[in-house]
């Protein structure tokens, strides 16, 4: 496996923090191309941020659920709010309604939140709607913390939807917004624009998309990742 090779190549340098060594050790080769979808753990997540530029903007909250064997266990959810000193620009705040510095009791700092998230992800497949952006946000935080990046495989539900709907334009995952897909697949859209709410909606979307692909013979992780839009 590519990532095992990477991990070996890089080795666990002595200055890796413990959480990161533990994270890397999770990629032990148990997930392979032939792993049935039922046995693959997907971490479906979403972040709310101060803006849309990973280089400048910061994470406000992370919400995630795990999908395993066609099931979401609500007790295994991640829902954390990040304390940021960064002053937001009005526009983004209007979308998700989180103001930095409010409710300090429940918040954690970014380092702690990202550590939680990394441990939560383990070696799962990371899934999100336009997941590249959310991963970039996490990676930006990891870079400034320890100079590392997430190594999980990833799956974009927007791209997956294009594949299921057999649209030619799946190279451009942006065609399908989460709202549009929720309408197509009858998914109720309450709590949009909270990280956990969007993560949950996306997880239900993932289940419905996976089921449709399974009918077409996509039954393994290999088959799932082979498609475009990864």
């Amino acid at each position, binding site marked *: 496996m590519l990532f095992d090779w990477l991990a070996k190549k890089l080795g666990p340098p002595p200055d890796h923090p413990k959480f990161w060594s533990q994270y890397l050790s999770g990629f032990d080769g148990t997930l392979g191309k032939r792993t049935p979808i039922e046995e693959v753990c997907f971490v479906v997540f979403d972040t709310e941020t101060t803006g849309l530029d990973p280089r400048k903007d910061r994470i406000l909250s992370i919400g995630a659920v795990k999908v395993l064997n066609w099931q979401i266990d609500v007790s295994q959810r991640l829902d954390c709010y990040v304390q940021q000193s960064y002053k937001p620009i009005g526009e983004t705040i209007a979308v998700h309604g989180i103001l930095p510095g409010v409710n300090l009791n429940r918040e954690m700092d970014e380092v702690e939140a990202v550590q939680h998230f990394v441990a939560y992800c383990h070696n799962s497949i990371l899934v999100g709607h336009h997941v590249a952006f959310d991963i970039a946000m996490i990676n930006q935080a990891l870079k400034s913390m320890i100079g590392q990046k997430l190594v999980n495989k990833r799956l974009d539900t927007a791209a997956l939807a294009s594949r299921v709907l057999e649209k030619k334009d799946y190279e451009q995952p942006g065609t399908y917004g989460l709202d549009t897909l929720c309408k197509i697949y009858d998914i109720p859209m309450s709590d949009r624009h909270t990280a956990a709410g969007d993560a*949950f909606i996306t997880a239900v979307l993932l289940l419905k998309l996976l089921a449709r692909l399974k009918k077409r013979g996509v039954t393994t992780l290999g088959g799932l990742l082979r498609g475009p839009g990864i």
Partner: protein
Amino acid sequence: MENTIPRRIYDFLKEFPPFNLLDPSLLLRVSERILVQYRQPDEVIFNQGDAPGAHIYIVREGAVHLLREVDGETILVEQCDEGDVFGIRPLLASEHYALTAKVVEESLIYAINIEGFREILENNPKVAFYLASTFAAGIGEKYRREGKPSLFLDQDKMVDANFPLVEIQSLEKSKDPVTCLPDTLIREAAIIMSNREVGSIIVVNEAGQPEGIVTDKDLRSKVATGVVGLGRPVTDIMSSPVITVGPNITVADVQIEMVKNRINHLCITEDGTLDSPVIGVLSEHDLMVVQGNNPALLIREIRRCRNGKELRNIRERAEELLKKYIYQEVAIAFIATVMSEVNDELITQAIRLCQAELDAEGQKRPQAEFCWLALGSEGRQEQLLRTDQDNALIFENVPEEAYQSTKAYFLELAGRVTRLLNEVGYDYCPGDMMASNPSWCLSLDEWKAQFSKWIFEPSPKAVMYCTIFFDYRPIYGPKELSAQLTEHIFKIIEGQAIFLGFLAKDALQNPPPLTFFRNFVVESSGEHKDEFDIKARAMMPLADAARVLILDAKVGKINNTFRRFEKLSELEPLNKELYQQAADAYEILMRYRALQGLKNKNSGRYFNPSELSKMERVNLRNCFQPIKELQTLLSLRYQLAYLR
């Protein structure tokens, strides 16, 4: 913002029973532990006969069929869709699944681990009751305790004493019963009773088995009056046999026994029969301690009433009792028994008062016995709230020369009784089906002729009369009169398949309760526009079907619709399930009608479906299922296609 996902699940669950009955913080805790399962068509969630699973299920989206395999055939028992709960058997009883749950549409299912939920159940009797009654109503699985009128649940496991309902609490039995041997002298027994400060003493044999009971009343009426000497053995004055019950008796059971037998003391024996040792005594006083307003007390007070106003007052107190029973979800079989007893006693007292009035006015009683019949819902022992009075009168055949005066007397009596009942709150029958109508105040021979005419020459009107008159039940006077009429009817009905066909056809005339889209059909015009007619659309089809089938089976004396269905399920094992569902459905419908009636202070017949909660709608909708099946059965059995 915190806890977004559980909140979303909570928002869904709180719309549906039984979750709407839970405290919000509790429901949120349940929501935090939910498994969201994606299921595809044809997937089987559990199989009939599988060991109990760890979850109960709620359909979030999609549809699941509950199926039963019977002799290699698969029967659809229920379709569960959004908000429906299924697979609750493991929660209520550690038994194997009785049904198979199969997904029919792409579905999202919420699964709740039964561990933890069980505790919730124990602390929330309403939730337990809801699950138990849906369970019993045939949603999901079937479960009923043989012969137990009060509880669906297995008492030992589920409810115990922390249930707040007095009616189903286990009674603290009076320990150390006061007993004596049969050769004890009355004087000695009286001394024991007085020393122990009790109002009764059980006479037991050497083995401790009850032989009889001596109460204060026996001492007063038989000894103090000098009829029996103090030096005689207690066996001379004891009442025997005593009515015995088992140790796990509930207040409801005790009341039923006392009301039924018109007694004030029950003897508790080890196994509930006369053949085991006495372990306690329950007196009516014990009951009154746990319960303020009690039916036996009301019935006794009715006998002391002197006028319509007093009777009305009692009936209103009975309604309070009814309200309490309904809100506490006491079994309808019990409520119906109690309320019919009250109604019967009210009618009886009304007759007694009117007869005394006529006596006082010097009107001579004729040389003929009479029997007062209750018809319609009171005849079926289903009248919980006061509705219209339907009644009739049979008098003994009299010589021709005495007929005029006899009939005149009974018409005068019936006129006064119906007037008095109207004062009590039972409206006059708009169709004049009352004993005060000369057509329905007849001699036995005239009644026989009347029924013969209806049966041999069935017309729509005759059939309509039959549906009302066939549910007659003797209330006052010698029961032989009505028994003779019943015998006559069964004799002539033999070989009159065409008549049963007419009755069956009539039973299919009722309008359907649901639209194609499973909405309630409401009245399109008139006084009750946009209201649902629960009587015509849901109850009458069941009552009518039960009547035809029970007449066909020649079973008399059972008038109550759900008891008729229960009897039918014994007689026709093949249709057992349908009949039991129908019986359950009827009980639930009676409960709803009473609930609506109490809420809106009317007969409860019409109500606006939009005022029902989702739970009520689901419950009602499920009651309608056996109606359709029964109508198909009638159609086939009486080949109604030919008659149409």
